């Protein structure tokens, strides 16, 4: 992005691009571990039964 947009004025304050946080091993463990607490099957709000398939046009 910075190669394309050079800017045409000088900002008052220095702009620092936020660092994209990489997933750490601890994060990955936490995500994998937490899913063990999930239920047996999904729940879908406001739905009952779909008897017939209606392809999207």
């Amino acid at each position, binding site marked *: 992005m910075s190669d394309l947009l050079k800017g045409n004025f000088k900002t008052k304050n220095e702009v620092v691009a936020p660092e994209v946080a990489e997933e750490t091993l601890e994060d990955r463990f936490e995500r994998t*571990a937490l899913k063990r607490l999930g239920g047996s099957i999904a729940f879908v709000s*406001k739905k009952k039964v779909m008897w017939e398939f209606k392809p999207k046009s």
Partner: protein
Amino acid sequence: MSVVYEGPGELGMKFVAQMDRLTLEKIGEEGLANAARNQAVMHRGKSIAELRGGPVGEGDSAIVIAAGPSIPRRNPIEAIKASGYKGALVATDSAMYYMLRNGVIPDLVVTVDPQEGLVRWFGQPDLDHEEIAKDDYWRRQDMDFAFADELKTNREIMSLLETYGPQIKIALATCASKSLVDRVLDIGMQIYWWNPMFDDPDLPGSKTAALFEANGMPCINAGGNVGSSCYMIAHAVLEKKHVALTGIDFSYYPETPYFNTQYYRDLIDIIGEENLDSAYIRVFNPDLQKEFYTDPAYYWFRETFLELAADADCVTYNCTEGGILFGDHIRTQPLSQFLTDMKASGAR
């Protein structure tokens, strides 16, 4: 997760808020893979659409029998047998053994969980000491105490199903594991396939819609767990207008040690024993004037059930006589009253 400092139940409620996502991460991939594989054996059963409007049980009522901890305490099958109830008896896979050993063949058994290992509800032919040593889940659980004696119970289930299995209709979710499906086929149960919804079928890129297109089986909102699936099938497929619930506790009795709860090992691994009080949620049931406690998944089951009940085309009677399922669209009453009322109204 490192040390957490939260008040009682606070961490549990944070997990509840994430439960939709956690559940899909837990079962989504495995469930869809199972459904793809099961397509090869779907010709061995029928579509659940054949049960629509229902040749299952007489009249317009049904009783759901799940395997909550109230079952050994309330023993609902005794009252059902004594009353001569002729309506539909819809049982979870986990409650099937309870019914069979009490001399009652369910009108319909429902199974939905895609995970391996649940074949045990149907008897596991190759179960041995080595297998049992790997996992204490079945010995610990607070649902059906008979499962504490694993090998003996396994032999009894296999024997009962060898005799009665071919008479039993089963609403078999297409996402069921290979071992479970193979076992159901070996037993010769009468299979009615259905797809549990994985997401909103009306959204672009829906996995549910793709599944329907692939196998043609009706898609049902399974409500997060097999007890709720039984309820959905009872009113939305069998079209029963009066549906009573037994064994739908979604909670534990206050005296039950954490050790005997469903997610104990998982919670210990994730948050540590010192934080368990913050993960378990205490709920006072005003209809029963009694407090129970629950874990995040079960609390989520309660919330999803209340939403299902609000939209249901039936009257919902909670005859569990325990647990945390109460609310605007739920009539809490003793099972004996439901049985008497159905008999009196001729709606049994």
